[in-house]
Protein backbone atom coordinates (compact mmCIF):
# COMPACT_ATOMS: atom_id res chain seq x y z
CA UNK A 1 0.00 0.00 0.00
CA UNK A 2 1.49 3.29 -1.07
CA UNK A 3 1.28 6.13 1.38
CA UNK A 4 -1.02 9.07 0.83
CA UNK A 5 0.54 12.52 0.79
CA UNK A 6 -0.09 15.12 3.46
CA UNK A 7 -2.62 17.12 1.46
CA UNK A 8 -4.78 14.05 0.90
CA UNK A 9 -4.70 13.28 4.62
CA UNK A 10 -5.67 16.89 5.32
CA UNK A 11 -8.58 16.50 2.88
CA UNK A 12 -9.68 13.31 4.57
CA UNK A 13 -9.55 14.91 8.03
CA UNK A 14 -11.64 17.88 6.86
CA UNK A 15 -14.21 15.59 5.27
CA UNK A 16 -14.39 13.44 8.42
CA UNK A 17 -14.68 16.40 10.81
CA UNK A 18 -17.45 18.01 8.76
CA UNK A 19 -19.32 14.72 8.49
CA UNK A 20 -19.13 14.26 12.28
CA UNK A 21 -20.32 17.83 12.84
CA UNK A 22 -23.29 17.13 10.58
CA UNK A 23 -24.09 13.76 12.15
CA UNK A 24 -23.79 14.82 15.78
CA UNK A 25 -25.09 18.37 15.34
CA UNK A 26 -27.50 18.33 18.33
CA UNK A 27 -24.76 17.08 20.70
CA UNK A 28 -22.14 19.63 19.63
CA UNK A 29 -24.11 22.76 20.29
CA UNK A 30 -26.33 23.60 23.23
CA UNK A 31 -28.24 26.31 21.36
CA UNK A 32 -31.30 25.67 19.21
CA UNK A 33 -30.43 26.91 15.70
CA UNK A 34 -33.92 28.38 15.33
CA UNK A 35 -34.20 30.03 18.77
CA UNK A 36 -34.79 33.74 18.24
CA UNK A 37 -33.48 36.17 20.86
CA UNK A 38 -33.99 39.67 19.50
CA UNK A 39 -32.30 41.31 22.50
CA UNK A 40 -29.02 39.67 21.58
CA UNK A 41 -29.03 40.28 17.83
CA UNK A 42 -25.75 40.78 15.95
CA UNK A 43 -23.55 40.00 18.97
CA UNK A 44 -19.89 39.47 18.08
CA UNK A 45 -18.30 36.11 18.95
CA UNK A 46 -18.08 35.58 22.73
CA UNK A 47 -17.88 32.74 25.23
CA UNK A 48 -21.65 32.19 25.09
CA UNK A 49 -21.91 32.35 21.30
CA UNK A 50 -18.53 31.32 19.93
CA UNK A 51 -19.37 32.56 16.41
CA UNK A 52 -21.66 35.39 17.49
CA UNK A 53 -25.33 35.80 16.63
CA UNK A 54 -27.28 36.91 13.56
CA UNK A 55 -29.72 39.82 13.37
CA UNK A 56 -32.49 37.71 14.97
CA UNK A 57 -30.17 36.72 17.81
CA UNK A 58 -29.87 33.12 16.67
CA UNK A 59 -26.60 31.40 17.59
CA UNK A 60 -24.43 31.38 14.46
CA UNK A 61 -22.40 28.35 15.52
CA UNK A 62 -25.45 26.10 15.87
CA UNK A 63 -26.82 27.39 12.58
CA UNK A 64 -23.48 26.51 10.99
CA UNK A 65 -23.46 23.02 12.48
CA UNK A 66 -27.05 22.30 11.46
CA UNK A 67 -26.31 23.98 8.12
CA UNK A 68 -23.54 21.42 7.62
CA UNK A 69 -26.24 18.73 7.75
CA UNK A 70 -28.21 20.37 4.98
CA UNK A 71 -25.27 21.32 2.80
CA UNK A 72 -23.60 17.92 3.05
CA UNK A 73 -26.80 15.94 2.47
CA UNK A 74 -27.65 18.03 -0.57
CA UNK A 75 -24.12 17.34 -1.84
CA UNK A 76 -24.36 13.60 -1.26
CA UNK A 77 -27.85 13.01 -2.61
CA UNK A 78 -27.23 15.18 -5.67
CA UNK A 79 -24.02 13.30 -6.46
CA UNK A 80 -25.78 9.99 -5.83
CA UNK A 81 -28.38 10.91 -8.43
CA UNK A 82 -25.78 12.09 -10.91
CA UNK A 83 -23.72 8.91 -10.48
CA UNK A 84 -26.76 6.66 -10.99
CA UNK A 85 -27.90 8.61 -14.07
CA UNK A 86 -24.38 8.83 -15.45
CA UNK A 87 -23.68 5.13 -14.94
CA UNK A 88 -26.93 4.12 -16.63
CA UNK A 89 -26.46 6.37 -19.66
CA UNK A 90 -22.72 5.77 -19.93
CA UNK A 91 -22.83 1.99 -19.62
CA UNK A 92 -25.71 1.59 -22.06
CA UNK A 93 -23.92 3.84 -24.58
CA UNK A 94 -20.58 2.09 -24.13
CA UNK A 95 -21.92 -1.46 -24.19
CA UNK A 96 -24.38 -1.28 -27.08
CA UNK A 97 -22.49 1.23 -29.25
CA UNK A 98 -23.96 2.02 -32.68
CA UNK A 99 -26.94 4.35 -32.91
CA UNK A 100 -27.75 4.08 -29.20
CA UNK A 101 -24.27 5.38 -28.43
CA UNK A 102 -24.63 8.15 -31.02
CA UNK A 103 -27.90 9.34 -29.53
CA UNK A 104 -26.67 9.29 -25.94
CA UNK A 105 -23.37 10.94 -26.81
CA UNK A 106 -25.14 13.67 -28.73
CA UNK A 107 -27.53 14.14 -25.81
CA UNK A 108 -24.51 14.61 -23.54
CA UNK A 109 -23.04 17.20 -25.95
CA UNK A 110 -26.32 19.09 -25.92
CA UNK A 111 -26.63 19.04 -22.13
CA UNK A 112 -23.07 20.35 -21.86
CA UNK A 113 -23.96 23.33 -24.05
CA UNK A 114 -26.21 24.77 -21.38
CA UNK A 115 -24.49 26.87 -18.76
CA UNK A 116 -25.28 24.51 -15.86
CA UNK A 117 -26.30 27.32 -13.55
CA UNK A 118 -28.81 28.65 -16.11
CA UNK A 119 -30.39 25.23 -16.57
CA UNK A 120 -30.63 24.75 -12.80
CA UNK A 121 -32.17 28.19 -12.20
CA UNK A 122 -34.67 27.76 -15.05
CA UNK A 123 -35.80 24.42 -13.65
CA UNK A 124 -36.13 25.90 -10.17
CA UNK A 125 -38.20 28.75 -11.62
CA UNK A 126 -40.61 26.14 -12.93
CA UNK A 127 -40.64 23.63 -10.06
CA UNK A 128 -40.01 25.99 -7.17
CA UNK A 129 -37.16 25.85 -4.66
CA UNK A 130 -37.11 23.13 -2.02
CA UNK A 131 -34.39 20.89 -0.64
CA UNK A 132 -35.59 17.88 -2.63
CA UNK A 133 -35.93 19.82 -5.87
CA UNK A 134 -32.43 21.22 -5.43
CA UNK A 135 -30.94 17.76 -4.91
CA UNK A 136 -32.71 16.29 -7.93
CA UNK A 137 -32.01 19.23 -10.20
CA UNK A 138 -28.31 19.45 -9.33
CA UNK A 139 -28.05 15.68 -9.82
CA UNK A 140 -29.80 15.68 -13.17
CA UNK A 141 -27.67 18.50 -14.54
CA UNK A 142 -24.29 17.06 -13.56
CA UNK A 143 -24.26 13.42 -14.69
CA UNK A 144 -22.59 14.03 -18.06
CA UNK A 145 -19.00 13.76 -16.85
CA UNK A 146 -19.70 10.46 -15.10
CA UNK A 147 -21.45 9.11 -18.21
CA UNK A 148 -18.44 9.93 -20.38
CA UNK A 149 -16.05 8.34 -17.89
CA UNK A 150 -17.95 5.07 -17.56
CA UNK A 151 -18.62 4.91 -21.30
CA UNK A 152 -14.90 5.10 -22.01
CA UNK A 153 -14.15 2.45 -19.36
CA UNK A 154 -16.76 0.08 -20.74
CA UNK A 155 -15.67 0.59 -24.34
CA UNK A 156 -12.25 -0.80 -23.42
CA UNK A 157 -13.49 -3.42 -20.94
CA UNK A 158 -16.08 -5.03 -23.19
CA UNK A 159 -13.41 -6.33 -25.57
CA UNK A 160 -11.65 -8.22 -22.79
CA UNK A 161 -11.74 -11.99 -22.47
CA UNK A 162 -13.66 -12.23 -19.21
CA UNK A 163 -16.58 -10.48 -20.86
CA UNK A 164 -16.42 -12.84 -23.80
CA UNK A 165 -16.33 -15.73 -21.33
CA UNK A 166 -19.40 -14.41 -19.57
CA UNK A 167 -21.19 -14.10 -22.88
CA UNK A 168 -20.11 -17.62 -23.84
CA UNK A 169 -21.78 -19.13 -20.79
CA UNK A 170 -24.98 -17.33 -21.77
CA UNK A 171 -25.06 -14.38 -19.38
CA UNK A 172 -27.61 -11.74 -20.34
CA UNK A 173 -26.57 -8.22 -21.38
CA UNK A 174 -28.02 -6.89 -18.12
CA UNK A 175 -25.94 -9.31 -16.09
CA UNK A 176 -22.76 -8.58 -18.05
CA UNK A 177 -23.21 -4.84 -17.60
CA UNK A 178 -24.14 -4.87 -13.93
CA UNK A 179 -21.98 -7.73 -12.66
CA UNK A 180 -18.90 -7.61 -14.88
CA UNK A 181 -18.50 -4.24 -16.53
CA UNK A 182 -19.69 -1.66 -13.99
CA UNK A 183 -17.79 -3.12 -11.00
CA UNK A 184 -14.60 -3.07 -13.07
CA UNK A 185 -15.08 0.39 -14.43
CA UNK A 186 -16.46 2.17 -11.37
CA UNK A 187 -13.11 3.24 -9.84
CA UNK A 188 -12.61 6.51 -11.74
CA UNK A 189 -16.30 7.28 -11.23
CA UNK A 190 -15.95 7.12 -7.44
CA UNK A 191 -13.00 9.50 -7.62
CA UNK A 192 -14.96 11.92 -9.75
CA UNK A 193 -17.92 11.55 -7.38
CA UNK A 194 -15.71 12.82 -4.53
CA UNK A 195 -14.97 15.90 -6.61
CA UNK A 196 -18.66 16.03 -7.53
CA UNK A 197 -19.69 16.41 -3.88
CA UNK A 198 -17.47 19.50 -3.74
CA UNK A 199 -19.12 20.91 -6.85
CA UNK A 200 -22.64 20.17 -5.59
CA UNK A 201 -21.93 21.89 -2.25
CA UNK A 202 -20.71 24.96 -4.13
CA UNK A 203 -23.77 24.98 -6.39
CA UNK A 204 -26.18 24.53 -3.49
CA UNK A 205 -24.57 27.34 -1.51
CA UNK A 206 -24.73 29.64 -4.54
CA UNK A 207 -28.41 28.83 -5.08
CA UNK A 208 -29.29 29.25 -1.42
CA UNK A 209 -27.36 32.52 -1.33
CA UNK A 210 -29.50 33.81 -4.20
CA UNK A 211 -32.63 32.74 -2.29
CA UNK A 212 -33.40 29.98 -4.81
CA UNK A 213 -32.06 27.02 -2.85
CA UNK A 214 -32.68 25.85 0.69
CA UNK A 215 -35.35 28.15 2.10
CA UNK A 216 -35.14 29.85 5.51
CA UNK A 217 -35.67 29.19 8.37
CA UNK A 218 -33.85 25.92 7.56
CA UNK A 219 -30.18 26.91 7.82
CA UNK A 220 -27.69 26.19 5.05
CA UNK A 221 -24.27 27.75 4.64
CA UNK A 222 -25.46 29.52 1.54
CA UNK A 223 -28.59 31.09 2.97
CA UNK A 224 -26.79 32.26 6.12
CA UNK A 225 -24.62 34.28 3.74
CA UNK A 226 -27.69 35.92 2.22
CA UNK A 227 -27.96 37.92 5.43
CA UNK A 228 -24.26 38.77 5.24
CA UNK A 229 -24.94 41.08 2.32
CA UNK A 230 -27.07 43.41 4.43
CA UNK A 231 -24.72 43.31 7.43
CA UNK A 232 -21.55 43.99 5.44
CA UNK A 233 -19.30 46.22 7.51
CA UNK A 234 -21.41 45.71 10.66
CA UNK A 235 -21.11 42.03 11.47
CA UNK A 236 -18.00 40.48 9.92
CA UNK A 237 -18.65 37.10 11.59
CA UNK A 238 -21.77 36.44 9.53
CA UNK A 239 -19.75 36.87 6.34
CA UNK A 240 -16.58 35.12 7.42
CA UNK A 241 -17.63 31.87 9.11
CA UNK A 242 -20.10 30.35 6.63
CA UNK A 243 -17.88 31.26 3.68
CA UNK A 244 -14.86 29.69 5.36
CA UNK A 245 -16.90 26.56 6.09
CA UNK A 246 -17.82 26.21 2.42
CA UNK A 247 -14.26 26.95 1.28
CA UNK A 248 -12.67 24.46 3.67
CA UNK A 249 -15.19 21.69 3.05
CA UNK A 250 -14.98 22.01 -0.72
CA UNK A 251 -11.18 22.16 -0.45
CA UNK A 252 -11.28 18.98 1.66
CA UNK A 253 -13.32 17.02 -0.88
CA UNK A 254 -11.17 18.29 -3.76
CA UNK A 255 -7.91 17.34 -2.02
CA UNK A 256 -9.30 13.93 -1.09
CA UNK A 257 -10.51 13.36 -4.66
CA UNK A 258 -7.22 14.44 -6.21
CA UNK A 259 -5.30 12.31 -3.74
CA UNK A 260 -7.40 9.24 -4.55
CA UNK A 261 -6.97 9.87 -8.26
CA UNK A 262 -3.19 10.05 -7.88
CA UNK A 263 -3.18 7.04 -5.62
CA UNK A 264 -5.05 4.78 -8.02
CA UNK A 265 -3.27 6.08 -11.09
CA UNK A 266 -0.85 3.33 -12.16
CA UNK A 267 1.18 5.75 -14.28
CA UNK A 268 2.05 8.12 -11.51
CA UNK A 269 5.64 9.15 -11.01
CA UNK A 270 7.20 7.73 -7.89
Amino acid at each position, binding site marked *: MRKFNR*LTVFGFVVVAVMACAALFAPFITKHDPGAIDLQNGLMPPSAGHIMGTDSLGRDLFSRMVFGARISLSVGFVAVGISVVAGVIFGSVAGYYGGWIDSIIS*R*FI*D*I*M*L*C*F*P*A*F*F*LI*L*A*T*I*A*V*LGPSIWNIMIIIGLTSWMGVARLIRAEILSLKEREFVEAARAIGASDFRIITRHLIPNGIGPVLVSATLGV*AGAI*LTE*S*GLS*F*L*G*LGVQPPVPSWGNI*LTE*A*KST*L*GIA*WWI*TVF*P*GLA*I*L*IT*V*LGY*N*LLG*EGLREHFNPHRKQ
Partner: protein
Amino acid sequence: MVNFIIRRLMGMVPVLIGITLITFFVIHLSPGKPTRLQAEMSPKISLEAREKLDKLYGLDKPVHVQYWEWVKRLSVMDLGKSFVDERPVSEKIGERIPITIAINVLSLILIFLVAVPIGITSAVREGSAYDRISTVFVFIGFAMPTFWLALLLMSLFGVNLGWLPISGIKSIDFEDYNLLEKLLDLIRHLALPVFVSAFVGLAGISRYMRTSMLEILNKDFVRTARAKGLPEKQVIYKHALRNALLPIVTIIGLSVPGLIGGSVIFESIYAIPGMGKLFYDSVMARDYPVIMGVLFIGAVLTLIGNLIADVMYAYVDPRIRVSGR
Protein backbone atom coordinates in the same frame (compact mmCIF):
# COMPACT_ATOMS: atom_id res chain seq x y z
CA MET B 1 -9.90 25.57 -43.59
CA VAL B 2 -13.21 26.69 -45.12
CA ASN B 3 -14.14 23.04 -45.48
CA PHE B 4 -13.42 22.48 -41.82
CA ILE B 5 -15.60 25.39 -40.75
CA ILE B 6 -18.47 24.23 -42.95
CA ARG B 7 -18.23 20.71 -41.51
CA ARG B 8 -18.31 22.13 -37.99
CA LEU B 9 -21.32 24.31 -38.76
CA MET B 10 -23.21 21.31 -40.16
CA GLY B 11 -22.42 19.38 -37.00
CA MET B 12 -23.97 22.17 -34.97
CA VAL B 13 -27.42 21.76 -36.49
CA PRO B 14 -28.54 18.67 -34.52
CA VAL B 15 -27.10 20.16 -31.33
CA LEU B 16 -29.06 23.34 -31.94
CA ILE B 17 -32.25 21.32 -32.40
CA GLY B 18 -31.47 19.49 -29.16
CA ILE B 19 -31.02 22.81 -27.38
CA THR B 20 -34.47 23.98 -28.48
CA LEU B 21 -36.00 20.66 -27.37
CA ILE B 22 -34.46 20.82 -23.89
CA THR B 23 -35.32 24.50 -23.41
CA PHE B 24 -38.90 23.79 -24.39
CA PHE B 25 -39.05 20.70 -22.19
CA VAL B 26 -37.72 22.49 -19.09
CA ILE B 27 -40.31 25.25 -19.24
CA HIS B 28 -43.12 22.77 -19.82
CA LEU B 29 -42.14 20.71 -16.78
CA SER B 30 -44.39 23.05 -14.90
CA PRO B 31 -47.47 21.33 -13.49
CA GLY B 32 -49.73 24.26 -14.35
CA LYS B 33 -49.85 26.37 -17.44
CA PRO B 34 -47.38 29.26 -17.40
CA THR B 35 -50.20 31.71 -18.10
CA ARG B 36 -51.96 30.69 -14.92
CA LEU B 37 -49.27 32.51 -13.00
CA GLN B 38 -49.72 35.64 -15.00
CA ALA B 39 -53.43 35.35 -14.33
CA GLU B 40 -52.88 34.79 -10.61
CA MET B 41 -51.03 38.07 -10.41
CA SER B 42 -54.21 39.88 -11.33
CA PRO B 43 -56.89 37.93 -9.46
CA LYS B 44 -59.78 39.68 -11.18
CA ILE B 45 -59.02 38.02 -14.47
CA SER B 46 -62.02 36.07 -15.73
CA LEU B 47 -62.08 32.55 -17.08
CA GLU B 48 -62.74 33.94 -20.52
CA ALA B 49 -59.75 36.24 -20.33
CA ARG B 50 -57.61 33.38 -19.14
CA GLU B 51 -58.61 31.35 -22.17
CA LYS B 52 -57.75 34.29 -24.38
CA LEU B 53 -54.35 34.43 -22.71
CA ASP B 54 -53.89 30.71 -23.32
CA LYS B 55 -54.77 31.19 -26.95
CA LEU B 56 -52.36 34.10 -27.26
CA TYR B 57 -49.50 31.89 -26.13
CA GLY B 58 -50.88 28.88 -28.01
CA LEU B 59 -51.28 26.89 -24.80
CA ASP B 60 -54.60 25.40 -25.86
CA LYS B 61 -52.86 23.39 -28.57
CA PRO B 62 -51.16 20.00 -28.28
CA VAL B 63 -47.53 20.10 -27.06
CA HIS B 64 -45.87 19.19 -30.36
CA VAL B 65 -47.78 21.94 -32.18
CA GLN B 66 -46.73 24.39 -29.48
CA TYR B 67 -43.11 23.34 -29.93
CA TRP B 68 -43.27 23.67 -33.68
CA GLU B 69 -44.77 27.14 -33.50
CA TRP B 70 -42.21 28.21 -30.93
CA VAL B 71 -39.35 27.03 -33.15
CA LYS B 72 -40.88 28.79 -36.17
CA ARG B 73 -40.98 32.06 -34.24
CA LEU B 74 -37.49 31.38 -32.87
CA SER B 75 -36.09 31.11 -36.39
CA VAL B 76 -36.96 34.75 -36.98
CA MET B 77 -35.61 35.69 -33.52
CA ASP B 78 -39.08 36.24 -32.10
CA LEU B 79 -38.75 35.06 -28.51
CA GLY B 80 -42.14 36.28 -27.36
CA LYS B 81 -43.02 39.04 -24.93
CA SER B 82 -42.08 39.42 -21.29
CA PHE B 83 -44.86 38.74 -18.77
CA VAL B 84 -43.55 41.57 -16.62
CA ASP B 85 -43.43 44.57 -18.93
CA GLU B 86 -44.79 43.22 -22.23
CA ARG B 87 -41.58 44.15 -24.04
CA PRO B 88 -40.19 41.76 -26.68
CA VAL B 89 -37.80 39.28 -25.05
CA SER B 90 -35.25 39.61 -27.86
CA GLU B 91 -35.07 43.34 -27.21
CA LYS B 92 -34.62 42.82 -23.46
CA ILE B 93 -31.86 40.29 -23.99
CA GLY B 94 -30.30 42.30 -26.80
CA GLU B 95 -29.67 45.32 -24.63
CA ARG B 96 -28.19 43.22 -21.80
CA ILE B 97 -26.00 40.85 -23.78
CA PRO B 98 -23.14 43.24 -24.72
CA ILE B 99 -22.39 43.92 -21.04
CA THR B 100 -22.19 40.24 -20.15
CA ILE B 101 -20.09 39.40 -23.19
CA ALA B 102 -17.77 42.34 -22.52
CA ILE B 103 -17.19 41.27 -18.91
CA ASN B 104 -16.63 37.66 -19.92
CA VAL B 105 -14.20 38.56 -22.70
CA LEU B 106 -12.28 40.82 -20.30
CA SER B 107 -12.08 38.06 -17.73
CA LEU B 108 -10.98 35.54 -20.38
CA ILE B 109 -8.17 37.93 -21.34
CA LEU B 110 -7.25 38.36 -17.68
CA ILE B 111 -7.31 34.58 -17.18
CA PHE B 112 -5.10 34.03 -20.16
CA LEU B 113 -2.59 36.75 -19.25
CA VAL B 114 -2.20 35.59 -15.65
CA ALA B 115 -2.76 31.83 -15.78
CA VAL B 116 -0.43 31.01 -18.66
CA PRO B 117 2.70 32.55 -17.11
CA ILE B 118 1.87 30.97 -13.73
CA GLY B 119 1.43 27.58 -15.38
CA ILE B 120 4.68 27.87 -17.34
CA THR B 121 6.79 28.97 -14.41
CA SER B 122 5.47 26.32 -12.06
CA ALA B 123 6.02 23.60 -14.68
CA VAL B 124 9.56 24.79 -15.39
CA ARG B 125 10.35 24.95 -11.67
CA GLU B 126 8.46 21.79 -10.77
CA GLY B 127 8.65 21.03 -7.05
CA SER B 128 10.06 24.43 -6.10
CA ALA B 129 8.56 26.60 -3.38
CA TYR B 130 6.96 28.71 -6.13
CA ASP B 131 5.34 25.63 -7.64
CA ARG B 132 3.99 24.54 -4.25
CA ILE B 133 2.58 27.96 -3.41
CA SER B 134 0.88 28.22 -6.78
CA THR B 135 -0.55 24.71 -6.32
CA VAL B 136 -2.08 25.75 -3.00
CA PHE B 137 -3.46 28.87 -4.67
CA VAL B 138 -4.98 26.72 -7.41
CA PHE B 139 -6.75 24.44 -4.93
CA ILE B 140 -8.10 27.41 -3.00
CA GLY B 141 -9.26 28.91 -6.29
CA PHE B 142 -11.16 25.71 -7.13
CA ALA B 143 -12.84 25.66 -3.73
CA MET B 144 -13.72 29.36 -3.55
CA PRO B 145 -17.44 30.12 -3.60
CA THR B 146 -17.51 33.06 -6.04
CA PHE B 147 -20.38 34.81 -4.31
CA TRP B 148 -18.42 34.79 -1.06
CA LEU B 149 -15.33 36.16 -2.77
CA ALA B 150 -17.54 38.85 -4.30
CA LEU B 151 -18.92 39.72 -0.84
CA LEU B 152 -15.47 39.82 0.76
CA LEU B 153 -14.01 42.07 -1.93
CA MET B 154 -17.09 44.26 -1.81
CA SER B 155 -16.75 44.68 1.94
CA LEU B 156 -12.98 45.30 1.76
CA PHE B 157 -12.65 47.63 -1.24
CA GLY B 158 -16.15 49.03 -1.31
CA VAL B 159 -17.24 49.38 2.31
CA ASN B 160 -14.12 49.40 4.51
CA LEU B 161 -11.60 51.13 2.26
CA GLY B 162 -14.13 52.91 0.06
CA TRP B 163 -11.85 52.67 -3.00
CA LEU B 164 -14.26 51.14 -5.46
CA PRO B 165 -17.98 51.51 -6.15
CA ILE B 166 -20.01 48.49 -5.11
CA SER B 167 -22.81 48.40 -7.65
CA GLY B 168 -23.73 49.20 -11.23
CA ILE B 169 -21.43 49.83 -14.15
CA LYS B 170 -21.31 53.62 -14.18
CA SER B 171 -21.72 56.56 -11.83
CA ILE B 172 -24.86 58.70 -11.80
CA ASP B 173 -23.17 61.71 -13.39
CA PHE B 174 -21.46 59.52 -16.00
CA GLU B 175 -22.82 61.58 -18.91
CA ASP B 176 -21.03 64.75 -17.71
CA TYR B 177 -17.58 63.12 -17.70
CA ASN B 178 -15.02 63.56 -20.44
CA LEU B 179 -13.75 60.51 -22.30
CA LEU B 180 -10.87 59.75 -19.95
CA GLU B 181 -13.05 60.08 -16.86
CA LYS B 182 -15.69 57.85 -18.45
CA LEU B 183 -13.10 55.18 -19.13
CA LEU B 184 -11.74 55.45 -15.61
CA ASP B 185 -15.26 55.24 -14.20
CA LEU B 186 -16.00 52.07 -16.17
CA ILE B 187 -12.73 50.49 -15.06
CA ARG B 188 -13.47 51.28 -11.43
CA HIS B 189 -16.91 49.73 -11.70
CA LEU B 190 -15.81 46.65 -13.62
CA ALA B 191 -12.62 45.85 -11.68
CA LEU B 192 -14.26 43.72 -9.00
CA PRO B 193 -16.76 41.87 -11.24
CA VAL B 194 -14.10 40.99 -13.81
CA PHE B 195 -11.71 39.81 -11.11
CA VAL B 196 -14.38 37.68 -9.42
CA SER B 197 -15.51 36.20 -12.70
CA ALA B 198 -11.91 35.37 -13.67
CA PHE B 199 -10.86 33.94 -10.31
CA VAL B 200 -12.03 30.34 -10.61
CA GLY B 201 -11.00 30.10 -14.26
CA LEU B 202 -7.60 31.43 -13.27
CA ALA B 203 -7.00 28.47 -11.00
CA GLY B 204 -8.24 25.93 -13.54
CA ILE B 205 -6.37 27.23 -16.57
CA SER B 206 -3.08 27.67 -14.74
CA ARG B 207 -3.37 24.07 -13.58
CA TYR B 208 -4.01 22.83 -17.12
CA MET B 209 -1.16 24.97 -18.41
CA ARG B 210 1.18 23.43 -15.87
CA THR B 211 0.15 19.86 -16.71
CA SER B 212 0.32 20.48 -20.43
CA MET B 213 3.74 22.13 -20.14
CA LEU B 214 5.09 19.31 -17.96
CA GLU B 215 3.96 16.78 -20.52
CA ILE B 216 5.64 18.64 -23.39
CA LEU B 217 8.87 19.17 -21.44
CA ASN B 218 9.28 15.39 -21.27
CA LYS B 219 8.93 14.96 -25.03
CA ASP B 220 11.83 13.90 -27.25
CA PHE B 221 11.91 17.05 -29.35
CA VAL B 222 12.50 19.13 -26.24
CA ARG B 223 15.38 16.87 -25.28
CA THR B 224 16.74 17.22 -28.82
CA ALA B 225 16.49 20.98 -28.62
CA ARG B 226 18.39 20.95 -25.35
CA ALA B 227 20.91 18.44 -26.64
CA LYS B 228 21.84 20.56 -29.60
CA GLY B 229 22.69 23.31 -27.15
CA LEU B 230 19.84 25.78 -27.56
CA PRO B 231 19.56 28.25 -24.71
CA GLU B 232 16.95 27.17 -22.16
CA LYS B 233 14.83 30.27 -22.85
CA GLN B 234 14.50 29.33 -26.49
CA VAL B 235 13.70 25.72 -25.66
CA ILE B 236 10.89 26.75 -23.35
CA TYR B 237 9.36 29.72 -25.09
CA LYS B 238 9.86 28.63 -28.69
CA HIS B 239 9.70 24.86 -28.74
CA ALA B 240 7.72 23.81 -25.70
CA LEU B 241 5.31 26.69 -25.16
CA ARG B 242 3.81 26.64 -28.65
CA ASN B 243 2.85 23.02 -28.28
CA ALA B 244 1.74 23.33 -24.69
CA LEU B 245 -0.64 26.16 -25.56
CA LEU B 246 -2.66 24.01 -27.97
CA PRO B 247 -4.89 22.22 -25.44
CA ILE B 248 -5.40 25.49 -23.55
CA VAL B 249 -7.28 26.90 -26.53
CA THR B 250 -9.83 24.10 -26.22
CA ILE B 251 -10.02 24.38 -22.44
CA ILE B 252 -10.76 28.10 -22.69
CA GLY B 253 -13.54 27.29 -25.15
CA LEU B 254 -14.93 24.74 -22.70
CA SER B 255 -14.91 27.25 -19.86
CA VAL B 256 -17.37 29.53 -21.66
CA PRO B 257 -20.56 27.97 -20.20
CA GLY B 258 -19.12 28.21 -16.69
CA LEU B 259 -18.32 31.88 -17.18
CA ILE B 260 -21.75 32.68 -18.58
CA GLY B 261 -23.48 30.71 -15.83
CA GLY B 262 -21.35 32.45 -13.21
CA SER B 263 -22.52 35.82 -14.49
CA VAL B 264 -25.81 35.28 -12.65
CA ILE B 265 -23.99 35.38 -9.33
CA PHE B 266 -21.67 38.33 -9.69
CA GLU B 267 -24.10 40.39 -11.76
CA SER B 268 -26.79 40.06 -9.13
CA ILE B 269 -24.35 40.85 -6.30
CA TYR B 270 -22.81 43.88 -8.00
CA ALA B 271 -26.13 44.96 -9.60
CA ILE B 272 -24.72 44.88 -13.12
CA PRO B 273 -27.44 45.17 -15.76
CA GLY B 274 -26.29 42.18 -17.83
CA MET B 275 -27.85 38.93 -18.98
CA GLY B 276 -27.18 37.16 -15.68
CA LYS B 277 -29.05 39.80 -13.69
CA LEU B 278 -31.88 39.73 -16.21
CA PHE B 279 -32.06 35.97 -15.83
CA TYR B 280 -32.06 36.18 -12.03
CA ASP B 281 -34.83 38.80 -12.01
CA SER B 282 -36.90 36.74 -14.46
CA VAL B 283 -36.50 33.61 -12.35
CA MET B 284 -37.64 35.56 -9.30
CA ALA B 285 -40.66 36.89 -11.23
CA ARG B 286 -41.34 33.55 -13.00
CA ASP B 287 -41.18 35.46 -16.29
CA TYR B 288 -41.17 32.31 -18.46
CA PRO B 289 -40.68 33.86 -21.92
CA VAL B 290 -37.55 35.67 -20.72
CA ILE B 291 -36.26 32.59 -18.87
CA MET B 292 -36.73 30.50 -22.00
CA GLY B 293 -35.02 33.15 -24.12
CA VAL B 294 -31.98 33.55 -21.87
CA LEU B 295 -31.61 29.78 -21.46
CA PHE B 296 -31.64 29.35 -25.23
CA ILE B 297 -29.29 32.26 -25.92
CA GLY B 298 -26.91 31.07 -23.17
CA ALA B 299 -26.63 27.66 -24.82
CA VAL B 300 -26.17 29.22 -28.27
CA LEU B 301 -23.39 31.45 -26.89
CA THR B 302 -21.66 28.34 -25.56
CA LEU B 303 -22.01 26.69 -28.95
CA ILE B 304 -20.45 29.75 -30.60
CA GLY B 305 -17.67 29.82 -27.99
CA ASN B 306 -16.87 26.17 -28.74
CA LEU B 307 -16.92 26.84 -32.46
CA ILE B 308 -14.46 29.72 -32.09
CA ALA B 309 -12.20 27.54 -29.94
CA ASP B 310 -12.33 24.71 -32.51
CA VAL B 311 -11.56 27.03 -35.40
CA MET B 312 -8.68 28.58 -33.47
CA TYR B 313 -7.38 25.13 -32.67
CA ALA B 314 -7.58 24.07 -36.31
CA TYR B 315 -5.83 27.30 -37.25
CA VAL B 316 -2.89 26.77 -34.93
CA ASP B 317 -2.68 23.00 -35.39
CA PRO B 318 -2.69 21.86 -39.05
CA ARG B 319 -3.05 18.21 -38.00
CA ILE B 320 -6.66 18.84 -36.98
CA ARG B 321 -7.80 20.41 -40.24
CA VAL B 322 -6.22 17.69 -42.35
CA SER B 323 -7.41 14.64 -40.46
CA GLY B 324 -10.78 16.36 -40.18
CA ARG B 325 -12.04 15.29 -36.81
